[in-house]
């Protein structure tokens, strides 16, 4: 028997799962109140798109997530470099970052809502903190664990601190940051959606909270699919960016 390609095997498995799911709900073996049929979820999804209802919410979440990702990246990179290159900065920052890393950072969401209100700022703040802590450690460890042979090589060629940063630290850290970039994209969306879930007037998290409070399982699953689709699309973009920026690794 000819073995199917990996993509075809995955598609077949997914299709089988959907057929089983549909059959279970249609035959009444599973209560559609708790698990509506895939076709019902698809209909809700189509309606959200057709009426245009989804777009303002998707836009709000995407704005908070992208802005949080960007600010979190910049903040994490700046703080990570500062801590790695200046010991007194590390003394101050490391305990705070370890503490922030140890706790589930989404617990900060209610505090940000109290401080910054239910608008964009509180979602942005949560997404930023989630991303910045992750990237801080990527950069901090990236600089500290840089290959010392390369550092000595550049030094013996006459390179000073600025050359080391340009030729060794930045490229080395880029690899570390891009290695964590996909996780950061996920964190940014988590921050935005959880922030909206806690308190907000729009966004996918707000819609999700509304769907949950009205026991609308079809809408809940449809929104989860939308969020998963967004993150997967961004993962794909992140992979392309990684292959472009780390071309030396893929040659």
């Amino acid at each position: 028997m000819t073995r199917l390609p990996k993509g075809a095997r995955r598609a077949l498995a997914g299709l089988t799962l959907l057929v089983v799911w549909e059959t279970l709900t249609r035959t009444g073996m599973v209560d559609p109140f708790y698990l509506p049929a895939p076709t019902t979820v698809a209909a809700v999804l189509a309606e959200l798109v057709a009426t245009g209802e989804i777009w303002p919410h998707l836009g709000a979440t995407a704005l908070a997530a992208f802005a949080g990702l960007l600010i979190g990246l910049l903040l994490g990179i700046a703080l990570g470099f500062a801590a790695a290159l200046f010991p007194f900065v590390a003394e101050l920052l490391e305990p705070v970052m370890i503490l922030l890393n140890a706790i589930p950072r989404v617990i900060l969401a209610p505090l940000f809502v109290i401080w910054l209100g239910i608008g964009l700022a509180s979602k942005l703040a949560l997404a930023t903190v989630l991303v910045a802590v992750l990237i801080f450690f990527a950069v901090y460890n990236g600089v500290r664990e840089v290959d010392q042979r390369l550092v000595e090589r550049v030094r013996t060629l006459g390179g000073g601190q600025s050359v080391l940063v340009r030729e060794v630290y930045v490229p080395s850290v880029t690899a570390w940051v891009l290695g964590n970039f996909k996780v950061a994209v996920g964190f940014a969306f988590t921050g935005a959606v959880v922030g909206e879930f806690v308190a907000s007037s729009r966004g996918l998290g707000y819609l999700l909270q509304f769907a949950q409070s009205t026991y609308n399982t079809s809408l809940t699953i449809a929104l989860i699919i939308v969020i998963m689709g967004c993150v997967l699309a961004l993962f794909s973009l992140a992979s392309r960016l990684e292959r472009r920026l780390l071309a030396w690794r893929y040659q």
Partner: protein
Amino acid sequence: MLRIRDLSVGYGEEPVLDGVSLEVGTGRFVSLVGPSGSGKTSVLRAVTSLLEPLGGTIDCDAAPTEVGFLFQDDALLPWRTVAQNVGLGLRIRNLPPDDIDRRVTSWLERVGLTGLGSRYPAQLSGGQRKRAALAQVLVLEPRLLLMDEPFASLDAIVRTRLTQELVTWVEKDGLTVMLVTHDLEEAVSVSDEVYVLGQGPRADVVAALKLALPRPRDLLQVRQHPEFPAAVNGLWQALTGAPDSEQKES
């Protein structure tokens, strides 16, 4: 060119090297041999200021920018192409781009890497990476070349071929060289003088051997020279602590 007096080097309380004195005359090829852990590499690291000596003095006629250091590992930047790696020291010295391109192209040709300049180090063989590392150092036209077992990881054929090419360049350009190696035959075949370090900790120079082997040196022919076996034997006796190992001459 290089005078080291009573050098002490250590990484903790106890010195690895203690009281090491040696001299490398201008245009001479000097090797430093010794058992593993005797601190051979530490001597080179102290000369290039990668290691702060605990005591002693290092006088070098060459400015820091005129000293080239070829590491045991090729240590090429993996994210830079071969040409960019070779030109790294020239860029650090802020030379005009045209000048850098010309010199890099010339050295890539000289080390047999023509056409491979746009590749990344991971796309080269071990021997090709060593050639690139060699070009990276020699393109800076150093007056003093320090080498730490640069070809140790290569197979015998590539190693012999590369060493021969290196010796030929050194003789042609009149370079001063200090080579660290644990291979006694290699040390004798390429050098004008060989210093022997004893077993560490607190290793010291236990013997110095001046060689009168002819130049230009053919690495295969020199092994047939009548003085070659005696010189290798002398180094062996010095390393293994034979009583007549102090200050030999051949």
